[in-house]
């Protein structure tokens, strides 16, 4: 799966699992940062990240190991899409 397709799936999750307004989800671009407190970010907090990781595990069949520091991969839609695509490619 290409990072672009992963990105589209992540946008779907924003609405389905993270309860974002569809209009807000439509506004995000690959470069949009994820974590709350970062400029122009979508504003996710620790609980949102857990929800997102459950959704990713379900959708893509990969395991997000919480003992690993995944913070860098969750920086933006771009980094997260590449990380997931990479994990899928490696499998």
């Amino acid at each position: 799966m290409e990072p672009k397709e992963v990105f589209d799936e992540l946008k779907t999750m924003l609405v389905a699992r993270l309860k974002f307004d569809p209009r807000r989800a439509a506004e995000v671009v690959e470069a949009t940062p994820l974590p709350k407190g970062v400029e122009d970010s979508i504003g996710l907090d620790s609980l949102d990240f857990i929800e997102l990781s459950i959704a990713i595990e379900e959708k893509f069949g990969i395991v997000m190991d919480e003992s690993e520091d995944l913070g860098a991969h969750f920086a933006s839609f771009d980094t997260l899409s590449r990380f997931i695509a990479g994990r899928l490619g490696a499998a």
Partner: protein
Amino acid sequence: MRPVVVTGLGAVSPFGVGVKPYWAGLAAGACAIRPLTLFDAAAFRCRIAAAVPESPGASPRRSRADGLALGAAGEALDDAGLGRVERREAALIVGAVGGGMLEAEAWYWARAQGERVPSWAAALRSMLPGSHAGTLAHRLGLGGPRHSVVTACSSGAVALAEAAELIADGVVDVALAGGVDAMTRLCFMGFNALKLLDPEPCRPFDRDRRGMSIGEGAAFVVLEAAERAHARGARVYAELAGHGMTTDAFHVTAPQPEGEGMTRAMRAALAVAGLDPRGVGYVNAHGTATPQNDRIEALAIARVFGEGRVLVSSNKSMIGHTMAAAGGLEAVATILALTHELVPPTANLGTPDADVAFDCVPRVAREAAIEHAISNSFGFGGQNVTLLFRRA
């Protein structure tokens, strides 16, 4: 403000029915966390928990939680030697979260799978957390002011603080207060979803800790105006000399990162007791074994008492996190640590976390004559409670 003392103890824990097996288990540093059999846990990463081995007062018409609560509450009242007349005046404060959800879940699961569902009125009547109080008051003849508090994982401790205020303010002379929770699918599933459960028995304050273990149980104490307890010649275990209740107002699940609300709760308890921090020798920690809680709690304890200045241990290493019962069970442990001059250990603690600047009493109980000890309880939503006990 009238002094408030503890004159009766009751516990139903993963070590069994009664205060005796509970204390024996704690003193031995035993671990009651085992594979979960109460319901199917196969779908989850964590499949262990600390269940009560035999449920007292079990009956098809009574929820498991009500059975646990009746066992512990009855023991505390008998232990205090309270007669019928005194019971009629006694306040009842119950800390609860899950209520009779275990039975209600069984009904809902069956219904969702299209199975024929038996009558569920009994399960629904005892489903809400406030329902234990009605059952306890009716069965045990308690006729004073009654209320049920829900503050997530600190509910049991809040119940003791609430009762202490009613007595201190002169509303009642005696109160039965504590917490209860039976294991529920919702709770087990939820903490699994939050990835907060360790697949192995939890290891509070360990460098390699990976999360909590869930437990269940109930604990109640009889609190009494000191004057009245002395007048009737009651045995006094300890004085509940102070308490503090604060709220982080920060996040629905994460504690405030500096432990600000926890610090205020501990300082408030010290202020009520009129005690200098140096007077406290032991902290019975909330100590859930999540990476975040233990680090932040240790930070807050250090801020209040100074690094290394108190012994710190977590009962949850032995009985898991018993949710609304935790504040009650841990209060009983703190009181018994004072009376037996023995600090229960933190089981499963191999390599202490360098961020935890305290002696966490690894694996083996420690003999120590302590004058004052505190018990911390923190709940989701930043609901912080500290209880401060003074040796009788």
